[in-house]
């Protein structure tokens, strides 16, 4: 890292830390129904939404009704997108006349965007119409993000309330999240992105003449699409001359803003945030990273305020920050070393395969750790082409369960499950009934926390295991050897943890990955979410136990350290064998020169 990279990293984290408090306080006010600066403008809209939908905003729900409403709204969300993808050729705003999605791909994509995963087994520019991108994918980016935030707010209420069964009104939390938080931020962010060169239009694709014509070889095919052969049995090759290129257009900025802000990550184009039209300058790059972290980081403060002790929030924030910065350091080291196979040939400048020049290696790495630590999954570099230790970092961050900031809402509720476990383990050590935030942690809370933490991990290991003994799945790997295993492991880790990034060499648009992946995304999203709502209900019903001399203080550095250890131990115990066979073996073969 040169001095500029240090400065860039330092400024970035300083700005992030400065924003945590204002954003977090604002969100706490919104969810507690207090007036804010935007209320005069938005309160009438909010009330109109409730009137049309027949929602009484003062009527709260118990956790079962809250979970039911969440699941029902998400089911509707899924059905609408599924139908839209299957019928996109019949709908307007399709200037390229793109055909409908095949049903398996449509199913995978609809589940993917409903669960805030945004795993994409298709290329946006050649598969999805403007109408699909706007009325389908952009809408899902908003609603799935607001759903995650609603769940964590209900859980926080569970900690904050005493002797009640009520955890809030899902419809109110959903509407407020979208109207007061996501929409205003996305609007400003989209315009800032356009100023940098992110496109925003409804024009048809532009065809331009190339300055220098180029050519490529293509196998000749007959009418049925089969390759043709010459008399000696060689495939017939024809040379195609290319004199013009077609540049795709579209309403990109409006989707780009919410894609980062809602930790969704589904790109308008196949290259995602590496595409110059999605991420044109170093400033837009850092701005997008900031957008990804803004709400997850702010929510830690929202949590602190709502439970009445902001230090509780800062403690979790510091644990997340520590893990993020450590991951960045290791990735930075690995990528600036470059590929040892190339350095002795006289190639210098680190590993640039799958990276863009304008971001620099340090900027690219900051994006890579951020997008995998949160459940965003947008990419500004091709993770498949990272060095083995470099690739281990995003994979590990996903496998830890998306808790290092994590998805909007989902990151914090999973982190709170870890905190409950950390408190419980330390309680065992000193032989006391564990308490967290004045609530006794009992058998039910432990069960629900364990379910939340282990669901994704168990699924990753089982499904990756199934894939490695399935010939169809093996033929999807783009790279041979240990790296192929990393691709499959990363794919299921990404889907089960609702991240959505990929070791993209893996050909995931097959029935096997589309269908099993859809299952992984569904279970990985809703089992933990419902478990945490159940915990919200259970906690809300408990009485407050004032801290005594034997209570572990959970707002101080020793607890932060202890929590970090628990996270790392759980992660290592679950995944070390799989990681040893993938990236670690690959690293050893690479340095061994095999």
């Amino acid at each position, binding site marked *: 890292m040169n001095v500029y990279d240090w400065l*860039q990293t330092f400024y970035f984290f300083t700005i992030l830390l400065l924003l945590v408090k204002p954003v977090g306080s604002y969100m706490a006010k919104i969810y507690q129904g207090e007036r804010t600066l935007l209320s005069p403008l938005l309160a009438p809209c909010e009330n109109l939404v409730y009137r049309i*939908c*027949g*929602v009484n905003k003062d009527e709260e729900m118990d956790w079962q009704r809250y979970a*039911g409403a969440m699941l*029902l*709204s998400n*089911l*509707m969300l899924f059905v609408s997108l599924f139908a839209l993808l299957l019928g996109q050729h019949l709908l307007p705003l399709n200037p390229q006349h793109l055909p409908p999605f095949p049903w398996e791909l449509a199913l995978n994509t609809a589940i993917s965007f409903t669960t805030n995963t945004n795993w994409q087994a298709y*290329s946006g*520019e050649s598969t999805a119409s403007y109408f699909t991108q*706007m009325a*389908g994918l952009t809408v899902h980016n908003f609603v799935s993000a607001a759903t995650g935030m609603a769940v964590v707010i209900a859980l926080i209420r569970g900690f904050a309330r005493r002797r009640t069964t009520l955890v809030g009104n899902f*419809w109110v939390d*959903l509407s407020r999240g979208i109207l007061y938080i996501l929409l205003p931020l996305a609007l400003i962010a989209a*315009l800032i992105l*356009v100023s*940098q060169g992110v*496109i*925003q*239009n*409804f024009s048809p694709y*532009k065809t*331009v003449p190339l*300055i220098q014509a*180029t050519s490529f070889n293509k196998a000749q095919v007959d009418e049925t699409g089969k390759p043709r052969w010459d008399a000696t049995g060689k495939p017939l090759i024809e040379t195609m001359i290319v004199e013009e*290129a077609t*540049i795709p*257009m579209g*309403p990109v900025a409006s989707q780009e803003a919410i894609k980062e802000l809602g930790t969704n990550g589904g790109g308008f*184009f*196949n*290259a995602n945030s*590496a*595409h*110059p*039209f999605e991420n*044109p300058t*170093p400033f837009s*790059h850092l701005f997008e990273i900031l957008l990804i972290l803004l709400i997850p980081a702010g929510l830690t403060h929202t949590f602190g305020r709502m439970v009445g002790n902001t230090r509780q929030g800062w403690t979790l924030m510091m644990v997340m920050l520590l893990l993020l910065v450590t991951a960045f350091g290791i990735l930075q080291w690995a990528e600036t070393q470059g590929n040892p*196979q*190339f350095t002795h040939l*006289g190639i210098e*400048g680190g*590993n*640039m*395969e*799958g*990276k*863009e*020049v*304008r971001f620099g290696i340090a*900027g690219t790495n900051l994006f890579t750790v951020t997008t995998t630590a949160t459940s965003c999954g947008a*990419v500004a570099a*091709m993770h*498949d082409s990272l060095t083995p230790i470099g690739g281990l970092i995003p994979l590990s961050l996903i496998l830890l369960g998306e808790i290092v900031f994590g998805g909007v809402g989902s990151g914090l509720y999973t982190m709170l499950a870890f905190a409950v476990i950390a408190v419980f383990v330390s309680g065992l050590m000193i032989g006391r009934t564990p308490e967290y935030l004045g609530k006794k942690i009992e058998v039910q809370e432990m069960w629900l926390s364990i379910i939340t933490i282990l669901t994704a991990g168990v699924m990753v290991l089982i499904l990756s295991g199934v894939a490695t003994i399935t010939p169809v799945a093996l033929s999807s790997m*783009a790279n041979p050897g*240990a790296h192929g295993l990393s691709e499959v492991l990363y794919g299921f880790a990404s889907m089960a943890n609702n991240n959505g990034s990929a070791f993209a*060499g893996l050909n995931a648009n097959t029935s096997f990955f589309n269908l099993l992946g859809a299952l992984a995304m569904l279970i990985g999203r809703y089992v933990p979410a419902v478990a945490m709502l159940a915990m919200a209900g259970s906690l809300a019903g408990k009485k407050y136990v004032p801290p005594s001399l034997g209570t572990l203080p959970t707002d101080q550095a020793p607890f932060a350290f202890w929590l970090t250890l628990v996270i790392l131990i759980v992660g290592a115990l679950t995944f070390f064998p799989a990681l040893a066979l993938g990236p670690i073996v690959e690293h050893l073969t*690479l340095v061994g020169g095999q």
Partner: protein
Amino acid sequence: MKAIRPALLMLLLFTLICGGIYPAIVTGLAQICFPSQANGSLLTNQSGQVIGSALIGQPFSDPGYLWPRPSATGDFAYNPLASGGSNAGPTNPAYLRTVSERLQGLRAAGIQGPVAADLVQASASGLDPHISPSAAGLQVARIARARGLSEAQVFRVITSHLEERQGGFMGAPRINVLAVNLELRACQQITWTKLRSNLGQIWLW
């Protein structure tokens, strides 16, 4: 099931708000405030014809042009309809072979000594419009030779398109390949025109 009505109507309302009104407002404001950026930072020639985008790279292989990074886009290099990287893993034998072939190609074109990684490794988007200053520096001698210009002239054209770190510390310094090549092409046209007019003057005299 009292929840069905809000579930259905909220979906419709938010589809309207987030999928219709929001992108429409962004488009309107973007077209008013930043029309050039919102429409793809397109470059036009004197007659107003669109000849490319400042943000989307194009393929170049003639020795007289600045060469861009390798591109792994589908069908042909720098195909804007198929953005993406190679996704080659660092131990993939086919990939290791490809990179050393690219290196041999550069050596054959007269490039000695250490080579900047971005000149032999493909970008993430496959459309990267930039190369690093050191990757451009390696090509000065070749371009000058091919165009019959002095190295100082080529160097001046390249450095005039050097983009520094944004704000002094963000990203990396870089050179826009398409912008350099448009100017290099104009350079040659001027040289030819000058030559012809000189010949004409000699003939008149």
